[in-house]
């Protein structure tokens, strides 16, 4: 990708809360540099420039896929882009959207009454269900730093190293935090959650809610047992552990 022309970039959003795109715009100090070094071909939230439909060096995609139109758009983006980056929990696992993944027709009727029939929607899916994903930026919200690291690597024609393959607990220990699970007796999901946030929540005294998704080979059974021992009902443990795992692939 390294050449004299600035890389052509798009930031597109599907079913989600805008939080990943907002994280990009929250890089206030770096935005000028980004504006100078990249050509933003499409970024509806921040730019009214009309998408020229041409090839893209990279596309950042926020959100899950929950409607046929979104799937069509995603496939078109994949065809256009050399690199497709899935950003945030919704894109990676379907995030909290997946919690409303059951009977969409009934839920739609609850929300929209008799006009629901016209709204064609299916249980929200992660991007990887449909297209090849070249890089994952995890989190709800994702980290600013991981956005910047990715942009920096793209400028040099590559991708940053992949996400950490260890749990939030590791980072928490490095920061010498009190263990909220064992010592605080709170339902912290640090042991089963992928690191990379520098244990942000536990460092604020807040239990990890698992927003970065499960770490590889997570000890789910052990975590489940630990949470039950805290006195939580099985139902609540399942609800908490499933908050961000969404459409979870058991084999990953």
């Amino acid at each position, binding site marked *: 990708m390294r050449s004299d022309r600035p890389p052509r970039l798009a930031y597109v*959003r*599907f*079913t*989600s*809360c*805008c*939080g*990943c795109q*907002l*994280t990009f*715009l*929250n890089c*206030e*100090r770096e*935005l*000028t540099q*980004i*504006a*100078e070094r990249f050509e*933003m071909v499409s*970024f*509806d*939230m*921040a*730019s*009214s*420039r009309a998408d020229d439909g041409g090839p893209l060096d990279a596309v950042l995609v926020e*959100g899950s896929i*929950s409607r046929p139109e979104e799937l069509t758009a995603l496939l078109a983006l994949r065809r256009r882009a050399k690199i497709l980056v899935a950003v945030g929990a919704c894109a990676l696992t379907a*995030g*909290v*959207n997946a*919690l*409303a993944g*059951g009977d*969409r027709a009934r*839920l*739609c009727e*609850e*929300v*929209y*009454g*008799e*006009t*629901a029939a*016209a*709204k064609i*929607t299916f249980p*929200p899916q992660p991007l990887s269900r449909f297209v090849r994903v070249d890089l994952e930026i995890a989190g709800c*919200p994702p980290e600013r730093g991981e956005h910047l690291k990715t942009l920096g690597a793209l400028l040099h024609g590559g991708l940053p190293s992949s996400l950490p393959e260890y749990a939030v607990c590791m980072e928490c220990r490095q920061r010498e935090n009190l263990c909220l699970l064992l010592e605080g007796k709170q339902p912290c999901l640090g042991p089963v959650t992928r690191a990379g946030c520098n244990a*942000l*929540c536990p460092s*604020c*005294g*807040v239990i990890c*809610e698992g927003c970065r998704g499960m770490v590889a080979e997570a000890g789910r059974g052990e975590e489940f047992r630990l949470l039950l021992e805290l006195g939580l009902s099985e139902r*609540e443990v399942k*609800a*908490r552990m499933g*908050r961000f795992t969404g459409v979870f692939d058991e084999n990953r």
Partner: protein
Amino acid sequence: MRTVKIEPLTRVEGHGRVELRIKGGRLAGARIAITESPRLFEGLLLGRSLFEVPALICRVCAICSAVHRVTACRALEKALGVTIPPLAAKIRELLVLGGHIESHALHLFCLVLPDMEGTASVLDLLRKGNAVAREGLALKALGNRIQELAGGRVIHPINVEVGGVLQRPDEAGMENLLAELEGWRTRLPAVAVPFTDMDRFPDSREAVGTRVAVRGETGFSLMGDDLLLSDGRIIPADRYRELFREHPVPYSNARHSGEGKSPFLATALSRLELAGEFPEGMTLSKRNGELAGGIHANNAAQAVELFWVLSRAGTLLREILEEGERELRVPVQPGSGIGTAAVEAPRGLLIHHYGLDDLGRVAEADIVTPTALNQAAMEAQLLTDLAEVADETELVVRAERIVRAFDPCISCSVHLLRLV
């Protein structure tokens, strides 16, 4: 009759479309279609423990995540009859103010300023070295630092739970912020002024709609138990359903709200007009008792409100620093109850309503967002302002600017429940 569609609607938060129906060369009808995918938040909440609600519900919208989380906690605390410690209330308000600064700055400098400067985006402005854009981003960063300090995280804050807050903000962080806020007293006018000059906006007759905002407990405030309307009515927030008769419309994924023919207007402009006197002695030009500039005065209202927000944030920081009582959270026993809370989100009135069963699980949830409230007013405003415009290019440009002036947050507005 033919229809001009503006899609995608850009420089707004979320996906939407404007449909303009042209008849005999003139605008005959206008629709705002919200095309966000349904996220069906009630499906997430029903049957879940009340303690899960704050973390889940803030994921409705990133820009408004702080105010969603605080409003949800207030509603749940009302349902359970819980009173939080005063220090916790102050930390929460500080968080909400941080959200206002960030959101107003995002709207004014990133979404509106490019229109005033004739460019496509704030990125273009930054590349050209536009000083207002650069300073506006510094203000946006200030809002984010306040949110980070009071909420623990910039987006989807973690410090607020049912019963209070978890941590007192870092002492040194608060001192630094206070100093920075002091500096903004002289910096703010230069960046706010472009938005209070109505000559820089297109003509707009008058902002349509019955104004509605939270009636502050004392003076100008973002929180309260009653709603104040421009027709003089004061309505308890928990009777909002009678006031806003929402109904789903076939062309949109948000539901409409309106009472007969007069739409509601829930914006920063509504807050300022209903407050009567402007905070911090700011003045704006008036026409027939109304702010000049029609709906575009909402941008001016946001700019003016920033003066109040920054000053209030300073007051709160000082009070939090001086507060001797350290209690942050009261214990909460799960149980049954019904609670409603109304808080002013950056773009207007936000209502959360929850019903809990005897185990403290969500049996009913309802969220009314300002953008859903304003949908009918947006359509009426397009008709009011653009009825005489014959040129199609001008029509499209001005329609976009009118919709933008409302500061719609479309990602919020789909998460609505049926009102029974």
